[in-house]
């Protein structure tokens, strides 16, 4: 394993070092004292693993194609932007627009996430991206969601705290959301309905929950204490008649 001390380093220099190492065949890199450096792991297609200590900057793992990134800390805005494949494990919170337009791969967040998480996430055939959130999510969760899977566990919420904010699933027309907790009708976009889980849903959930517990050392019984709700769109083309209605 190679260790790089990122203290005071400009993002261009840091990312060049990371890319160089990986292209030379290094399989595991540890970046320490990261603070605000942008674009780490962007477009990475190699089967490599990066461990980050600190707070990486915006657009972490954007367009990533298959690597693994583990962050001991919080991540900033735009993490996993248009990500195509690979795994991101975040041992803290994530901020706004996590998984923006994500098209493949998996993101696990131990804590809370900000606004517009999973906005316009999409899936096609074997590309089925997933975001698993341990705590709560902000407004516009899964806005314009077109495919993939979003899971919110609501672990550690105060009694008066909501598991998601307002406008959850607004404009959603594909994919599925699983929420472990209550959601009031006025928190949902009008394109979304709440349905019960099938056996197939339980099987899918089981896989992601297993990973979540393994990555973060959480007891599965803790999660199983509360039931999930499933949110799906009413319609695959909610705006089909908006501009072209005759």
């Amino acid at each position, binding site marked *: 394993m190679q260790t790089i001390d990122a203290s005071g380093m400009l993002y261009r220099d840091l990312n060049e070092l990371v890319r160089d190492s990986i292209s030379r065949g290094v399989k595991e890199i540890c970046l320490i004292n990261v603070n605000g450096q942008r674009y780490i792991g962007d477009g990475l297609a190699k089967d490599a693993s990066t461990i980050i200590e600190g*707070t990486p900057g915006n657009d972490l793992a954007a367009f990533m194609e298959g690597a693994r990134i583990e962050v001991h800390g919080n991540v900033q805005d735009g993490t996993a932007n248009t990500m195509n494949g690979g795994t991101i494990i975040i041992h803290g919170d994530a901020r706004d627009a996590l998984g923006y337009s994500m098209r493949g791969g998996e993101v696990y967040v131990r804590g809370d996430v*900000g606004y517009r998480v999973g906005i316009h996430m999409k899936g096609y055939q074997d590309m089925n991206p997933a975001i698993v959130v341990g705590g709560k999510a902000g*407004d516009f969760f899964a806005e314009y969601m077109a495919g993939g899977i979003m899971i919110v566990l609501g672990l550690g919420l105060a009694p008066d705290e909501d598991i998601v904010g307002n406008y959850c699933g607004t404009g959603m027309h594909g994919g599925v959301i699983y929420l472990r907790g209550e959601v009031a009708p006025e928190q949902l976009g009008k394109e979304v309905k709440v349905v019960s889980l099938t056996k197939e849903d339980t099987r899918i959930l089981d896989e992601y929950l297993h990973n979540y517990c393994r990555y973060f050392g959480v007891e599965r019984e803790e999660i199983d204490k509360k039931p999930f709700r499933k949110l799906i769109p009413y319609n695959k083309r909610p705006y089909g008649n908006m501009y072209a209605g005759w």
Partner: protein
Amino acid sequence: MLREGQIRIPSGCAISGIMNKKGRVFGGGDIINSIAVMHDRSNGLGGGFAAYGIYPEFKEEYAFHFFFDHTAIKNEIEALLKKNFIIASGEAIPVRKSNSIKDAPLIWRYFVRPKHRVLVKQEVDEEEFVVRFVMRVNSEIDGAYIFSSGKNMGAFKGVGYPEDIGEFYRLEEYSGYIWTAHGRFPTNTPGWWGGAHPFTLLDCSVVHNGEISSYDANRRQLEMYGYKCVLQTDTEVVAYIFDYLMRKQGLPLDVIVKAMASPFWHEIDRMNKKEKEILRAIRVVYGGFLVNGPFSILIGTNQGMIALNDRIKLRPSIAATKGDYLYVASEEAAIRQVCSKPEHMWMPRGGEPVIGLLETSQPTCVPVRTEQEKIAINS
């Protein structure tokens, strides 16, 4: 060479603020280090700082910071100042020569008090007189701008990256209890010295990341009360709205915040009868001061620091506390750069303010706070 506008520079503005709630002063080094981490959010066309508690030796005087285009206009302004004010002191603001800061205007400061007989003649109080003087200079006198006019505080701004502007003004030599900073990426308006943030009036200062889409509606409303928007940047209206609602209308902070970032009508419809009545009244009476568009702002005053986002949080902000310090910034990294282990860190919701008041402050009301903020700010 391609000019700004012909090439795309991917970035967004940056803001950062640090406050000591006991009013203890600290140097400008921290705020420079904090804003510098977010270098790539700005493009070198504007940077600035507001600092509170920096002029204890002149704390009863209004500290006017001026940009002059040339010496002739400086002489003209000095004559005008002498007519209206008692000038306790006047000097060029000390700056450091720097390769990164070019084409600086003449930058001067004057510590002044309005003459008693002038106030009597115009039948206004001190603050109103100062506001009118600032408006008059900025709108009627070519080549002179007052960019700071409060007591025991000052704005320092210009064209350049914020960390270079901080070095230029030698900010590490000042000590204040609140510091705010801005790195600019101008989108709709020119990058010039007067257009850099913060925008100020009396001791109120505003730094802003985003866009005020309601600029013209707000400007028209403000013009009815004598404010003149001449600095070619949308953020200017926020400083004047705050001045109007706080100083002239005497509204409590929580009402000001609800007027500027009101809940949507469909949210008001779901509230209880009393809340509904209050919010309806605020929206009806102060509708012209509703600030629309994406924004994350930091407002500084002698009483404390307030952070506010637009209602649907189209711009980022993170808040944290440690000991007596409150931090708010566009990015977490900007806080961690100067605060290694924050005790509490949270993401404020859209329209939900972070209100950091000095322990010695006497606000006009106790602001409504969420439980989390109460814990964070009071602990």
